[in-house]
């Protein structure tokens, strides 16, 4: 499921840092690499994983490519919680009404 990809992608500390840098706004690989003690190819690789997880997206801006946070990754976590609460409340209702008999 999508949320799992998002979680796995963010479990790497360096990758979380790359993701964090994008909170400033859209950035190119070079700009991110300049702010981190990792190489450009390494940053590219992390961005690739974040992109596949739906956490970042990219677009061409002139001659370069910029990356930005894609809210869909977090939306996947939201979807999971949405389903989780559906199940939890259904179980709550069932338990409550089961206990109702005999009281």
């Amino acid at each position: 499921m999508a949320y799992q990809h998002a979680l796995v992608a963010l479990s790497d500390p360096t990758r979380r840092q790359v993701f964090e840098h994008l909170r400033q706004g859209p950035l190119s690989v070079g700009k991110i690499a300049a702010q981190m003690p990792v190489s450009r190819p390494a940053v590219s690789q992390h961005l690739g994983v974040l992109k596949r997880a739906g956490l970042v997206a990219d677009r061409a801006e002139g001659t370069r490519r910029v990356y930005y946070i894609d809210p869909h990754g977090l939306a996947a976590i939201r979807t999971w919680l949405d389903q989780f609460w559906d199940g939890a409340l259904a179980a709550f209702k069932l338990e409550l009404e089961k206990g109702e008999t005999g009281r």
Partner: protein
Amino acid sequence: MIKIAPVRKQVTVSASQERAFALFTEGMSRWWPATHSTLKSPLKQYVVEPHVGGRWYAVAEDGSTGQTGYVIEWQPPQRLVLAWQLSGDWQFDPELVTEVEVRFVAEAANTTRVELEHRNLQRMGDKAAQVRSMVDAPGGWTAVLESFRNCAAKI
């Protein structure tokens, strides 16, 4: 800033407001889906300490515990606000606070509408990334410890 819409749910139960509130809180172990636990051993108990600031935690069969959050507001039998502090990678993160508000609305003597809202979800992405990058970043604790090590080496 990324905004994620809150998760909103509601369910109507055939029970008094008091019973619904009691089962939701002190009886949580009886209905909480066993599939949702951050513990390695099977879930035995899910505890909400009944006061503001009380801990919300799970106890596994092997005795290990895992905190989910704490009680932000405690207004039995109408309302409850819990802090859900599990981060994006399902680890307890004391710096992260997402809120789960549960309202128990009495529709009749034996009918209660339970409304649930899980909000501030965007903090999951934010905080997990932010807190850890602060700690992990070259200027974070690593730098402090490095500086300490350098000083110690000179003495």
